[in-house]
């Protein structure tokens, strides 16, 4: 069962100090949802989510600034007064191409641009544009494994690959790996899942789903503190499956319409009066040992 979080219930606009940038702050739909503040306790940390940079995309009506959008995003992140502990990229680093050599060129260019991020480490994952046409072969040459885990200050992060199989599946082998990884954790362990596609059927008519995502959610449900961050849909979106919140991030090349809001999915055209509208990234503050995650949405402003 899924429930859309009533964003108004916990949305709180706030002016956030930092390079003169206004961020939009709200608490994610977790237990004891509290308005996000900019203050941090000693054991808190925060990370930054960037998504769907689609390096290599061209389309002047959609983004006439495509050749420099990623550089501006990097500059904006580098301009934050408080730098995150680490950065995650939730897929579609590059825009797809049928030419394997061009794919590698785009991956290399992307890697070079984001190497200018001040914060290390950076955790990457693939989107279908990066990995579906060659089962992740080129992606692995540049960024390594497609699914993996890492830990940070007591929070267990699981990166799931639901794109290197062109059917948009996680697959039995990876699901088995997931179950084995979870089996060694305490039921109250804080867990963050990072992936590209939604793990639930957000809007399958637009391929906004993971074919066997329900099996991953089923494996996660016994754990009390699980939060999922993903990309793919190029907009902020918040939804629950049981007690698990799923947060989609804005993209960094073009926004897409709300699920099912138009007959055909297509990028929202560039608005010259509001350049970069709909693009952005977010910071995620891990509070209470990784059991609460207030989010702050940031626009791209540098350039």
């Amino acid at each position, binding site marked *: 069962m899924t429930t859309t979080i009533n964003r108004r219930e916990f949305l709180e606009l706030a002016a956030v100090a930092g390079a003169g940038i206004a961020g939009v702050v709200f608490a994610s739909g977790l237990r004891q949802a509290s308005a996000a503040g900019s203050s941090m306790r000693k054991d808190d940390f925060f990370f930054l989510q960037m998504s769907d940079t689609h390096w290599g995309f061209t389309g002047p009506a959609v983004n006439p600034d495509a050749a420099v959008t990623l550089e501006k995003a990097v500059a904006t992140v580098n301009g934050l007064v408080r730098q995150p502990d680490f950065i995650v990229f939730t897929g579609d680093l590059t825009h*797809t191409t049928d030419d394997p050599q061009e794919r590698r060129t785009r991956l290399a260019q992307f890697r070079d641009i984001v190497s200018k991020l001040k914060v290390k480490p950076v955790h990457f994952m693939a989107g279908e544009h990066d990995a579906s*046409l060659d089962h992740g072969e080129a992606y692995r040459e540049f960024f390594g494994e497609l699914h993996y885990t890492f830990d940070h200050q007591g929070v267990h992060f699981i990166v799931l690959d639901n794109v290197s199989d*062109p059917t948009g599946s996680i697959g039995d082998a990876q699901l088995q790996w997931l179950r084995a990884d979870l089996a060694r954790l305490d039921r109250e362990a804080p867990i963050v899942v990072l992936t590209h596609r939604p793990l639930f059927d957000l809007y*399958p*008519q637009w391929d906004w*789903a993971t*074919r066997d995502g329900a099996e991953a959610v089923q494996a996660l449900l016994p754990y009390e503190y699980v939060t999922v961050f993903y990309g793919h849909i190029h907009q902020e979106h918040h939804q629950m499956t049981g007690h698990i919140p799923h947060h989609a991030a804005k993209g960094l090349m073009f926004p897409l319409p709300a699920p099912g809001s138009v007959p*055909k*999915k297509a990028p929202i055209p560039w608005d010259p009066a509001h350049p970069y509208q709909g693009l952005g990234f977010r910071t995620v503050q891990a509070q209470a040992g990784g059991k609460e995650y207030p989010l702050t949405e940031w626009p791209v402003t540098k350039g």
Partner: protein
Amino acid sequence: MKSIKRALILWSVLALAAVGEAAAAEALPVVQQERVIQVTAKVSEYSPQEIILKKGEPVVLELTSQDREHGFRLPDFGIREDIKPGQVTRVRLLPQRVGRFTFACDVFCGVDHEEMVGEIVVVE
């Protein structure tokens, strides 16, 4: 006679399986001759992209690929199938609701994959 009866039961079962929960709550349909509609798939498009059906008319879509593997996902009918080169994928439909229902390729197939969509249009 026995074999005809068996065929009718089989058709009803298949039809219900294809139309999913929406039809399950309704009375069994009157059995009609099923219309066969050929649908080809190739990177970036289905042909035809719009398939017009009459409410209550049983049809079989015969899906074939002209290049590589594709998918056929029709969420409103609870249907998803693979379309593999050299094979015919048959999808039985018995539309019970008037409206427009999007189908899409759900096997990432190239630069124009996201263009690969179509519509079932059900009319009275």
